[in-house]
């Protein structure tokens, strides 16, 4: 058998086109490009929103006009022209179906290609899906089962109409409009997203899940997710993304807010596989996301993310550990290949006593990509006995990529205990040799080693996601080792 060389791998990689790069031809209703107060009003009107929501959006817009785009992240890209984007697009076939049969067959076919066939998911995985395709929810399943438990799981625009008291109370409470540039932009123009409320003491019987897709050419996607876990409740929320292949850069600026009241637990898992651009670094999605959770007493928020896509990622899922004894966790795998750039990490703000946080971050860079971990652990003076453990490991493949760590640690309490460690290494030739010797070809060996490297994080993913994530890791890294 002839040796499978690095060149072969590289060649194969080049020819492997982005698997999910296809474009569904659904007629979309798109607003004129550009952003001004009129557009914000129009979006609000389109969504039939009450006056307070319109005002809230306008307030955010006025803030957005004043702040500048952040430039501190370790990423380089051509800034998107915010006046050249259309801020609203919705699939034309009218939403609200009673059963899946009524859904536009073309759309269903799209999902099939993505491997998330609704009926299959329904039967096999027992996952309720709130499918967002270009901003408007078109199918919500398992709503009935959830309804019996008093769980509200719907699109945010529906929630604004039907549960205004909850939305009004919590929206912007964790990520205020003026938080940062992208959060302000999102607050002004968000088109849709998911809303979830788990009542007191209820353990959500299934994993809640949303799939996002960017579909319409030149359309920015601005999701807004709000998850509220009332006292003593539990919910596991999955979010997964794939986007079709496009040459011009697409913008994605989402905001996710989690609120875990006393003794509640939220587990939020993400698999992100937006289009990363081609091998020359052309195209790809800009992913500028603000995700933050608030923990009240004894509450727990756990973020798990697998980031394999996007040309530029700027994402810091954070926990504000406000209540005593609350727990924050962050598990992340960020894979970058070709010209991808990722600047991701977390913030753990310890305010309450006996608060605990764990950060496990695995960065894998290959090709000409740059992968940065940026994190903040802040222990405030009131946070007695706060505990943090952080570990950031980077794996480098090839000598044209970079791995960076920027951990910030600020401690103002003497009873706090903080540990931070970071390592950078590559896949050893001896490891590959060991596998080769035992009949495992180089490509499989790499997959094996990478899987082992990221095991601590993969283990935290729910079953359905773990499988997909493993597959993604393999696809993104094939042939990147020398």
């Amino acid at each position, binding site marked *: 058998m002839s040796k499978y060389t690095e060149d072969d791998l590289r060649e194969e990689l080049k020819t492997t086109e982005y698997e999910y790069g296809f474009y569904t031809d659904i007629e979309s209703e798109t607003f004129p490009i550009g952003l001004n107060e009129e557009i914000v009003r129009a979006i609000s009107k389109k969504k039939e929103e009450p006056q307070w929501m319109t005002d809230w959006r306008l307030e955010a817009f006025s803030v957005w006009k004043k702040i500048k785009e952040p430039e501190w992240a370790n990423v380089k890209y051509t800034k998107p022209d915010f006046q050249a984007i259309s801020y609203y697009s919705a699939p034309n076939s009218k939403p609200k179906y009673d059963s899946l049969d009524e859904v536009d067959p073309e759309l269903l076919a799209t999902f099939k290609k993505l491997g998330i066939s609704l009926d299959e998911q329904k039967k096999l995985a027992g996952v309720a899906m709130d499918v967002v395709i270009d901003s408007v929810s078109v199918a919500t399943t398992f709503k009935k089962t959830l309804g019996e438990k008093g769980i509200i799981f719907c699109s945010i625009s529906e929630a604004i109409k039907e549960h205004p008291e909850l939305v009004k109370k919590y929206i912007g409470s964790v990520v205020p409009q003026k938080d940062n540039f992208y959060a302000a932009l999102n607050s002004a123009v968000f088109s849709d997203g998911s809303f979830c409320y788990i009542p007191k003491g209820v353990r959500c019987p299934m994993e809640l899940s949303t799939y996002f897709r960017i579909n319409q050419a030149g359309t920015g996607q601005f999701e807004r997710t709000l998850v509220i876990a009332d006292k003593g409740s539990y919910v596991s929320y999955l979010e997964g993304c794939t986007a079709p292949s496009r040459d011009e850069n697409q913008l994605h600026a989402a905001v996710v807010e989690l609120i875990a009241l006393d003794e509640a637990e939220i587990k939020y898992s993400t698999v992100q596989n937006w289009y990363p651009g081609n091998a020359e670094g052309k195209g790809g999605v800009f992913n500028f996301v603000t995700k933050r959770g608030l923990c009240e007493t004894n509450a727990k928020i756990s973020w798990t993310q697998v980031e394999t896509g996007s040309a530029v990622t700027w994402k810091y899922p954070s926990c504000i550990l406000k209540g005593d004894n609350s727990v924050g966790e962050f598990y992340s795998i960020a894979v970058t290949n070709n010209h991808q750039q990722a600047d991701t990490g977390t913030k753990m703000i310890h305010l309450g006593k006996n608060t605990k946080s764990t950060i496990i971050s695995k960065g894998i860079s290959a090709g000409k990509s740059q992968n940065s971990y940026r994190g903040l652990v802040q222990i405030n003076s009131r946070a007695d006995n706060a505990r943090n453990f952080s570990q950031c490991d980077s794996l480098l493949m090839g000598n044209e990529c970079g791995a960076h760590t920027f951990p*910030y640690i*600020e401690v103002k*309490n003497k009873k706090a205990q*903080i*540990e*931070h460690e970071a390592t*950078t290494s590559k896949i050893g030739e001896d490891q590959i040799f060991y596998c080769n010797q035992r009949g495992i070809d180089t490509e499989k060996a790499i997959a094996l080693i990478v899987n082992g490297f990221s095991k601590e994080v993969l283990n935290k993913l729910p079953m359905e996601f773990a499988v997909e994530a493993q597959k993604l890791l393999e696809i993104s890294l094939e042939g990147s080792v020398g």
Partner: protein
Amino acid sequence: MELKDKLVSSFLAFENHINVDSKVHDIRSEAIKTFENEGFPSKKDENWKYTSLKSILKHDYSVFPKQEKALEYKDVKQYFIHDIDTYKIVFIDGKYSSHLSQTTHDKIDVCLMSSALEKPKYELIIENYFNKIAAKDSLAVLNTAFSREGAYIHIPKNQLVNKPIQIVHFSTGNEVALMLQPRNLIVVEENSHVQIIERHQSLTDNPVLTNSVTEIFANKRAIVDYYKLQNDKHKASLVDNTYIDQKRESLCSVHTFSFGGKLTRNNLNFFQNGERIDSTMKGITIIGDKQHVDHNTLVHHIEPNCESHQDYKGIFGDQSTGVFNGKVVVEKEAQKTNAFQANNNILLSDKATINTKPQLEIFADDVKCSHGCTIGQLDESALFYMRSRGIPKKEAKALLMYAFSNNVLNSVKIPELKHRITKLIAHKLGINIGFDL
């Protein structure tokens, strides 16, 4: 008048005292322009996020001390490592004190920056080395603009300097507030070995601000050991900028012992321009009150097969603040780099703060880089163990802190200095330790 404006305008007066028709002066004029544009760094600068100069810049510092004041050796003996023979370069209020110094031109040059800048025989060296690696940030350029006095050390090829060199800066309190800007240049040629101890000491409680720049060049296979002893009065502040350029197979280490001062900022930069270089940076910080110590280190790995070791220990009491900002950059060509960085801290009080930011920027794949950082307290069970064996709590605590910082002391190569630091630490921790480490 703001200090910045004062400095800019006093540059004209400064020009009256020096030779303005030299190449060095072109560098100075360029530097003052840069400073005028940039001003002092503020908290908005990422590198100064945790350290504010505001409180120390408010004094009305004299830039040129008016009169000289002589000091008797017996009065200041305690500030020297006096139990061994050393070369000494001593400055009083920024002026060279020949009386206290012991310099040489025998084989090696241990003398003054002012003579190196003025005398034609040093012209070539100045041209080759002066201001070649100092950063262009505002404090370093400010020093460059006023560069005139300091230590100049040149060790030619194949010289083992037989005794350590002490550089000591005294400020006498003759001025109400004094700003000092010493400029040191140290060139160590092939196969030579030198040990240097640097100290800044104020003798009264009048505020002093020292903005020092030291450029060190270690050529092939040179060995440079540099020790910085920072145990100044509580009104004195120090911004220390040290730049080290290493050629292949050289070995440099910088130990920083920060026990005193109001605000101490150490900018320590290593540039590895060659293969098989070893760089070591170690530090012990023990502070209390409202003291502030900031260690800002950079190791730039440019070529393959090099190593760097960083080990910083900090113990922070009362309302003190500790900052550690360590950066390791590994360039694409610097394969087989081995970089290690550790920062361990103990907080003794609820009002003390630690901000630490250990960064790695890595562009090469075949490297071993790691950093570790911990913040914690003394081990209760270890304390209990000692107390149950009759060691009083205070002593037990001190012993633990001692043990904590011992790693750093181990690599101090001058026994007398080690002894001195041991005593200083014991004093700082308020105990008597009946043995030497």
